[in-house]
């Protein structure tokens, strides 16, 4: 009994002490409620109606919008395009980024000085600070079929009519991917280079003394040592890829022949162009759930593999 007394007092004391810390959370809780929670819930409610927006009457539709979604080929097509976005935003930049970061850190930094390495790093990162409105415009001029930089160059080497990069339904998605890779590469490079500074230089020196070549060191030291950062980049970039909107709106408007539609753009079009607000809300809700689920899967998978390692 007497042993219980301090036990019971301790948590109570802890609670009353941490009680006032809750005050510090009031601003963000209020902000979260107004900016995220309430709109998100209202969006779910909207998805249960058929509504043209504005003063038009709302018609209760239950889960009808979601059922319609399941049979909407364009919607599934937009999700298929999300996979291409993942290739352009996650897979390719992460692979190239890890090699570039390792070369800059392990080779350029040592052989030509850290200044050279940070200068190169900054040039890779530059597209990341660009307003997407500007990036989209630049690439639309580069990819223009007549006046564009690429086709002008092709003409100068004798190819009279280069491809219509953004106008050909079979090509447009790959052209968008090209811009996204260019936009994205700097992000993994910067994160991975920062991670490499954490790695003990003696590890590399020992490996070098043992005669391990660059490729061996890359596989045996670099990649395993920065695994947490690789995961971080893959997670954030995957979420970003599933949310892609502005590049599509600016570069192609979803066209040609809907070949570059992504879920967020499809929702936007239903909201603001087709006046199918309820349907747009259903697309947005469904996309959100997919994003949360994929992020959760990635986190669980990472935790598990971390535990297996010990």
């Amino acid at each position, binding site marked *: 009994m007497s042993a219980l007394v301090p036990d019971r007092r301790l948590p109570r004391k802890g*609670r009353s002490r*941490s009680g006032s*810390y809750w005050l*510090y*959370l009031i601003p*963000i809780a209020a*902000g*979260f409620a*107004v*900016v*995220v929670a*309430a*709109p*998100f819930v*209202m*969006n779910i409610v*909207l998805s249960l109606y058929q509504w043209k927006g504005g003063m038009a009457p709302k018609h209760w539709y239950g889960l009808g919008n979601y059922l319609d979604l399941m049979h909407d080929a364009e919607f599934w097509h937009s999700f298929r395009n999300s996979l291409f976005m993942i290739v352009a935003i996650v897979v390719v930049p992460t692979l190239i980024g890890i090699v*570039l970061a390792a*070369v800059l850190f392990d*080779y350029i930094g*040592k*052989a030509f000085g850290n200044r050279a390495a*940070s200068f*190169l790093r*900054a*040039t*890779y*990162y530059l597209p990341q*600070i*660009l*307003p997407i*409105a*500007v990036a989209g*415009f*630049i690439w639309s001029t*580069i990819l223009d079929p007549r006046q564009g930089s690429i086709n*002008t160059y092709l003409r100068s080497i004798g190819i009279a009519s280069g491809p219509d990069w953004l106008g050909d339904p079979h090509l447009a998605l790959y052209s968008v991917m090209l811009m996204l890779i*260019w936009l994205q590469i700097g*992000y993994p490079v*910067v994160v991975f280079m*920062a991670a490499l*500074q*954490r790695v003990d230089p003696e590890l590399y*020196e020992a490996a070098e*003394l043992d005669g391990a070549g*660059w490729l061996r060191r890359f596989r045996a030291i670099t990649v395993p040592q920065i695994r*947490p950062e690789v995961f971080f980049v893959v997670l*954030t970039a995957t*979420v*970003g890829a*599933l*949310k892609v*909107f502005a*590049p599509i709106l*600016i570069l192609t408007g979803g066209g040609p022949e809907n070949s570059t539609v992504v879920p967020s753009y499809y929702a936007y079009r239903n*909201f603001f162009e087709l006046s199918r607000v309820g349907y747009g809300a259903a697309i*947005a*809700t469904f*996309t959100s759930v997919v994003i949360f689920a994929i*992020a959760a899967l990635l986190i669980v998978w990472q935790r598990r593999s971390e535990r297996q390692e010990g």
Partner: protein
Amino acid sequence: MNDEFPPAPSVVATRPHPGTEPAEQSRRNRYPLRWLMLLMTVTAATVMLAPFLLLVLNAFKTSADYSRHGPLSWPAAFTPQAFSRYLSLVDFPVALGNSVFIAGAVAFLGAALSLISAYAIGIGKVRCNGAILAVLLLATMVPQEALIYPLFYGAEEVGLLNSVWSVVIVFTVLQAAFGTYLLASVMTTLPKELLEAAVIDGASRWQILWRVVFPVLRPTLSVLVVFFFIWTWNEFYLPLILLNDPSAQTVPIALATLRGQHSIDITVLNAGSLLSLLPTLVFFLVFQRTLSRGVTAGAVK
């Protein structure tokens, strides 16, 4: 999750100078390889920079020069003609003022909000702090289209549609959700002695936040301010919907709106693009050093 990422102000290891390293022998054997690597990285850098070079070249051409010689030629003469034309079509000073105000306010308010919230979670260790972080993480993941329609009507309802404050409020919260997550994990690494000493000195929690925690976290906070500024400056979707009126438009939206009108000359848009990216570029160059510490603060558009 908290401990997986290194704290932002990580120690920058000082590496020995190239000449002083061992394995001089093998180093000489790899000599050509070293130049090959340089060639590879410099080529990559050139490819990355090429679009920027084209932008600059074509911003200073006359439109006649552009249509005659195409986008790849050197300008016959560098003229500011396209810039003055852009400035006559777009009320750039107003857009610039809006953008500076929005991005600046979000950067500082967002960082302050992150600091206060992270204090309760990282140091106060309030109950369910893990769950609170998870909810904030959701806020960073939610696609904007799932919020946009209610936000649009909500802003209209309270009279904030076409007011820069609507965007300031939304982005302060969204950026702070991420900032809180980051700062909370940094705060868990603060030495306990530091805080205990302050408690013994009789400092209140509020005083500890501003006199002990804030100075220690200053470098991390400055990284947050830089990134919040750049991200908010570049935002597209929400400002496009919430700030329709030209008097409230941001720099990127003004550019995009002008582009939507068909007969606009390419050189004019080049000039406008250059003007639109200049402020973030300056900001970026000034704070380029923070990049190595910015680390996990990077993000995806």
